[in-house]
């Protein structure tokens, strides 16, 4: 399975500046593991200590947030697109 992974601007310096990377995997977790294997610097930005995707990292498969699919166990197929979208948040308090 080959999936197009869209890398957000803040993570591109950790992935040789690439915007998009073709990676293999049968599930979101496998694709993310491929990404981290190739670009280990990304791990800490994506995952917490338990290996779960951080709360402020949103992951989309095609048009849907994986929280509304099967989380990181969501299966992916050839030609799918996986988007990594860090949250935009803050506030005066």
């Amino acid at each position, binding site marked *: 399975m080959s999936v197009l992974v869209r890398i957000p*601007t*803040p993570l*591109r*310096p950790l992935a040789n500046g690439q915007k998009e990377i073709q990676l293999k995997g049968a599930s979101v977790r496998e694709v993310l593991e491929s990404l981290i294997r190739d670009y280990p610097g990304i791990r800490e930005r994506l995952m917490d200590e338990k290996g779960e995707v951080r709360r*402020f990292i*949103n992951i*989309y498969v095609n*048009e849907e*947030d994986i929280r509304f699919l099967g989380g990181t166990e969501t299966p992916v197929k050839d030609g799918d697109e996986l*988007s990594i*979208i*860090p*949250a*935009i*948040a*803050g*506030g*005066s*308090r």
Partner: protein
Amino acid sequence: MGREPSGLLFPLGLYDAIVAHARSVFPEECCGLVVAPSGGGPVRVIPMENALHSPVRYEMSPKEQFQVQKNLRREGLEMWGIYHSHPSTRPYPSETDIRLAFYPDLYYLLTSLAEDPPPLKAYTIQNGVVLEIPLTVSPGEL
């Protein structure tokens, strides 16, 4: 473009759009994006919904972020900055702003409705370090 040796030149029309957005949702915080062509200066403000509808916090809806980024990709535009308002406090990044700054590559713009006319300040936030970048609102074409 948009970046002078001494700081940023920011179009008046975009400043007006940010202040109008801040006023329209007061007393909640507003939030949105400033976008630019690759390597260029800011050309458009995209108001986003504050999913928290709070006077002291903001968070964009991931779904709206996803859709906007897809549209920007099609148009050949990129995120240049992230703006939000502090309705009643000074326009300086709070501890929350710094902790949740996941875009060290972008400008964080802050306005405050505690002052009139509302100021607009620009910062970079990298590894918890805030750096103010002088911003001048420019009435003319950039």
